[in-house]
């Protein structure tokens, strides 16, 4: 009988954990979500007096919202693309080849993450000012590119390293050239993990604000930057709320995409190294 009692014992720790999670994550989400669909919500009502899509209409009819959406998408795509072109061959080299100063170079990719980011950004902004890259699309691309190096080097390096060398040798043995081995064996084996890294870098870039704001302002305004300025400057809360709900969309699609393309175990491997 004692086992039965054990099984029914209430897991207080688990409940407390769930409650805290709800308060910290779910509750703010609900509040923001509610704001986005509230036409009228005045103190002290607990739920809005009037629900509706009025502010969606007004928000989406604003020119600056649409420019920011296109801007965010083209920035993220460009940064991710460049990051792939630069980092994947580098990751392969780091994983498979030995060359002078390999370790030094490898850790230099990390160095950017080792210092307080904002200080670094201010320093770079100083340099960019001289190069006329402030308020420039490519200036923001460059700064955001630096932010993706960590994911796009470390995770693919781990992915390439974990590919069984014997598999590659077996492919050479049956007649595949080194390039064919890379294409048919190494890449498919490392693929899911690399896809995870690409996804991370796309989503990470989409939500990046510090660099976008410091280097991009005032000409370049991404969605998160616009949202912050709405929240800071607009008396109407709904603008910011609608925009933040819109901002959930990419991460939502990212997760869907991740679940389809990447099976969960190899996805986890990507983060575990």
């Amino acid at each position, binding site marked *: 009988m004692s086992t039965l009692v054990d099984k029914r014992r209430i897991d207080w720790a688990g409940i407390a954990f769930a409650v805290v999670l709800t308060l910290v994550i779910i509750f703010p989400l609900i509040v923001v979500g509610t704001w986005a669909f509230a036409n009228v919500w005045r103190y002290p009502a607990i739920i809005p007096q009037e629900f509706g899509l009025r502010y969606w209409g007004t928000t989406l009819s604003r020119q600056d919202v649409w420019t920011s959406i296109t801007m965010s998408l083209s920035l993220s795509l460009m940064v991710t693309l460049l990051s792939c072109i630069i980092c994947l061959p580098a990751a392969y080299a780091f994983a498979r080849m030995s060359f002078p100063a390999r370790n030094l170079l490898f850790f230099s990719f990390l160095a950017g993450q080792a210092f307080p980011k904002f200080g670094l950004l201010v320093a770079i902004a100083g340099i960019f000012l001289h190069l006329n890259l402030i308020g420039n699309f490519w200036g923001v691309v460059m700064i955001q590119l630096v932010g993706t190096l960590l994911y796009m080097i470390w995770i693919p390096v781990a992915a390439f390293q974990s590919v*069984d060398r014997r598999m590659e*040798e*077996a492919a*050479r043995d049956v007649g595949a050239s080194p390039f064919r081995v890379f294409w048919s064996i190494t890449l498919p084996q490392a693929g899911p993990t690399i896809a995870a890294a690409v996804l991370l870098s796309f989503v990470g870039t989409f939500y990046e604000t510090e660099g976008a704001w410091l280097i991009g302002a005032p000409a370049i305004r991404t969605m998160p930057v616009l949202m912050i300025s709405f929240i800071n400057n607009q008396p109407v809360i709904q603008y910011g709320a609608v925009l933040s709900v819109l901002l959930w969309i990419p991460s939502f699609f990212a997760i869907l995409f991740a679940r389809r393309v990447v099976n969960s175990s190899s996805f986890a491997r990507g983060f575990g190294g």
Partner: protein
Amino acid sequence: MAVLEIQNVTKTFGSGSVRAVDDFSLTVGDGELVCLLGPSGSGKSTLLRMVGGFETPTGGSIRIDGDDVTKAPPEKRPTGMVFQSHALWTHMNVFKNLAFGLKLRRLPPEEIKRRVEAILELVGLPGYGTRLTHQLSGGQQQRVALARSLVLEPKILLLDEPFASLDQHLRERLREEVRDIQQRLKITTLFVTHGQDEALAMADRIVVMRDGKMEQVAAPDTLYREPQTPFVAGFIGTMNLAEGVVSDGTFTRGPFTMPVPVGDGAAILAVRPEALGLAPGGMGDIHRVTDFGTHGIVDVDLPDGFRFKAMVPEAREWKAGQKVDLKPRAFSAYRDNAVIYRSQAAS
């Protein structure tokens, strides 16, 4: 028709400090299966990988049917390698694993299909083409790996401890299958193992390797009966190897003495347990008697701690603590790493 000639091949690693393979020469005849046998680190895999093209020899040459392939990359060699860890491509199913090499050779799809099905039949896995590699047992995976090499009809088949990760029972079954297939296809084969029974069961000839050098090459029965060095003697089967001194035709180690007709000096006496008789006496003490039913193994300790193993027909005749004399019926003597005497009927 394929002959493999390995001539004076040397491989060093780490700026010459590690001599993995040291001036090694061997010719494997057409359709012959040669086992490379030796302790861990003796250079077996390195030698095999040089034949497969995965390592470049530091010196010497490798020829297949007279063609020098010493510097050719793996994809340009008529060799097929089976790895210990099977190394199947986990993102492809069994059919694709087997078809990959054929596709690279631009064979028409029907031909590929026909060949893959034939080879699956040969390794006893008909209809397994659509399986994913992780849906196979360890033994089946190893068979697919073998099929992947065989389907390309290589001139030389190379196997590096292909059964090491399998259990004893499966290992015995697979080695018989591989031997059957090899003999049916008459394919020249180099097989690495560090299990002596595997080598004895499969090989036409066995090469015993030690520190990158060939210690001896011989047919299995010869190797067991006429080991050329104490190392080979100790490595194949169980062998009592007693170091001692010969003077005036008598070998002595502590109280153990026996006539050995060789010149004076240090010598190693080699006696198989089955050739070592026991009699009540005083040379050593019985440490333990192990009864296997069909026979017994008696451990006899000399006063200096050296232990002989003797095989007796009836274990119950002997008791631990008993004092006995050792009476070798057949033996060999070694000096300076070579045989100096072999008694008649040395087994």
